[in-house]
């Protein structure tokens, strides 16, 4: 696959460029908007939820930001990744190119957005007097895992979307439910132990929790926590790759 990536490097570059140009073509604010929009969400959440959760939670703004940062990256990458294969049907039915390139190209774009938000996040941390320790380095782990996780979900969704076009609506409903279950604006401390464990079944929550642990509490999660995250990513990525491999030559019947 890596050899193919080198072989198709030029195509990949051009796809990324195309997705980028198309995305920011007719918006005046362009890239700034993709930073502003999550900030606005953050702002609204801060105003609305401070009353309920803010008083008992330390660094509530950063707490909220961690949740928003991870979740908006997840939701953008997966919802945009979903249409990447169908959207490029005109290409892959005519030319024999690796089909996952279309998803990767979309992911690069959302990753850039995520990167920008991350910069803003760091600025907020400075403003909120978050101590910068060596432990921040370990954030690379959930970051990489999150990227891979999003690719995995994107692979699954983009393959499914070829067969079932209503996945798009089902997924947006599912994403909304998932958001409420990811403890973005509330804490799970008041729930029973069993319920708290149930939250760990939500992979997105794992990423959010990892960020908060490091940034706010400056503690590295347990080895088991790392392994759980790895398992989630491996399952999703494995399933995605399997679907692409299995349906590689079937997709074109459905587009």
């Amino acid at each position: 696959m890596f050899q193919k990536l080198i072989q198709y490097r030029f195509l990949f570059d051009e796809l990324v460029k195309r997705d980028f140009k198309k995305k920011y073509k007719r918006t005046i604010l362009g890239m700034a908007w993709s930073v502003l929009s999550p900030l606005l969400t953050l702002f609204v959440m801060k105003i609305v939820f401070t009353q309920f959760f803010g008083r008992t939670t330390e660094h509530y703004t950063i707490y909220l930001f961690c949740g928003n940062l991870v979740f908006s990256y997840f939701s953008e990458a997966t919802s945009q990744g979903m249409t990447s294969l169908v959207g490029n049907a005109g290409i892959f039915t005519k030319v024999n190119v690796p089909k996952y390139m279309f998803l990767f190209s979309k992911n690069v774009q959302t990753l850039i957005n995520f990167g920008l938000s991350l910069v803003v996040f760091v600025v907020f941390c400075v403003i909120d007097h978050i101590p910068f320790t060596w432990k921040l380095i370990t954030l690379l782990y959930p970051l990489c895992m999150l990227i891979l996780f999003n690719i995995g979900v994107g692979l699954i969704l983009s393959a499914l979307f070829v067969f079932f076009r209503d996945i798009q609506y089902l997924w947006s409903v599912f994403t909304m439910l998932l958001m409420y279950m990811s403890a973005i604006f509330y804490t799970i401390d008041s729930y029973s132990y069993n319920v708290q464990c149930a939250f760990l079944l939500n992979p997105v929550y794992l990423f959010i929790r990892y960020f908060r642990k490091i940034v706010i509490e400056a503690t590295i999660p347990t080895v088991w926590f790392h392994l759980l995250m790895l398992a989630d990513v491996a399952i999703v990525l494995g399933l995605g790759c399997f679907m692409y491999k299995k349906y590689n030559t079937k997709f074109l019947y459905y587009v």
Partner: protein
Amino acid sequence: MSILEVHDVSIQYLTGDFKEIGLKEYVMRKLTHNYHVNEFWADRHVSFTLEKGEMLGIIGSNGAGKSTLLKAVAGIMEPTEGYVTRQGNVAALLELASGFDGDLTVKENAYLRGAMLGYTRKFMDETYNEIIAFAELEAFQDRPFKQLSSGMKSRLAFAIASMVQPDILILDEVLSVGDGAFRKKSEAKMKEIIAGGAATILVSHSLEQVRELCTKVLWLEHGEQIACGDTAILCGLYQQYLDKTITLDQGKDIWASLRGHYDYLIVGSGLYGCTFAREMADKGKKCLVIDGRPQLGGNVACEDVDGVTVHKYGPHIFHTDNEKVWNYVNRFVSFVSYDGGFGEAHQGIPQGGYNGLVEGLLKGVPAVTGVSWQMLMEAFPNISDKVLYTGTIDGFFEYSEGHLEYDSLKIELEELEQKCYQDEAVVIPEENDEEHSGCTRVVEYKHFLHEKSPKTVVAFEYPQEWLPGRMMCRPVRDEKNMALYGKYQALAAERPEVIFGGRLGEYRYYTMADAIAMALDRAAQEI
């Protein structure tokens, strides 16, 4: 090893109303057992190989499985059965104008397309100007792609795609791009690529293009491989199939018979050739008859025009004193006697015309029309041990010594909306017929067989100077021509495997009965 080998490839295609249905509907249909996916074979048992510098033309009607096969060759689809092996890189130009992005500029699209075709950035940087110049789009480089006309889009697509030097090049209807001037340019470019040593596959609805460019042809129909081989013969067969003069099964039979091996190849299906074929076949020899004309029978071929049996190459009245020949032909057809004056014991025209006689003679002998001697020799030079050649002897030797001369006639057929034109079948017109001045004989065909059609067909015959290609009636056996014929006879003596027979092969005038008698003798000698 071939550059491309397609081995017994079958491709299953899925159809049905499963496209763009939702998950909810899918589940509902599964539950109610209402979910149907139809599988059909888009291609079945297709095999061919392609070498460097060869060009394969794929012909066949719509839905024959051409595009699906190309997708398998390009690697976009996988064969359900069989395999495709490729030595080297493949460039597939399928449905060119699609796959562009309307929002991007022309330049951006050019780079994207180049990348899709597997070019490097360096290559695109170097050839970009050339591409734009070739596509004649210099003024449009920074315009959004959707502002281009469809012709411009195709031009750009072609220009980019043709910059490659691939090992295997796949062209799906791409040569019919743009206006006339651009088409010429694109054809020239294609020839350049092929000359560069690529193995090329061309799908085109233009048989002319296939004839001109391809070194061999694959004929598909309903996914089935009808034939693969010689361009001229297969294009000829396909044309006959399109004209509905042969059915698909006949086409297959013809192709199969051309690939056999024979004791005798009989070139020309006139009475001489047909009689010879009948006799040899009856003696257990394997014979194949070919004729370059679209029908069998040589100059006795008949055609039904509005219920009138028309002799296509002038009126033919069978007359003979030879009892043996008369009995022989009556084995195959019954004759309607003719009262006109030859003064011979038997005179008549076969009931229903001469086609019945030809069919009777050729019963059980494979006969192929539309295939000339030259075409056959090019494709299957070793098809038979011996040859009976009933075409022109000078033509056989490619007129190396010059043309033998003939008397000629021009026959003008007129279909008339009247019951009757004249009282007799054959009338020598009086000289004051101004409308048909110079006419030497008028033949009204319906009188021969007493046919009752409300219309009539009349032939007016005019003598004309003979030129190569015109109808050949009687050989001019003067001193000059006989000397020339002598030279050809000397050449013929060096080809003992070829028997020259019949009017044209022996440069001698034969009546129909003569031709049959000579053929019977000739066949008797062969046994």
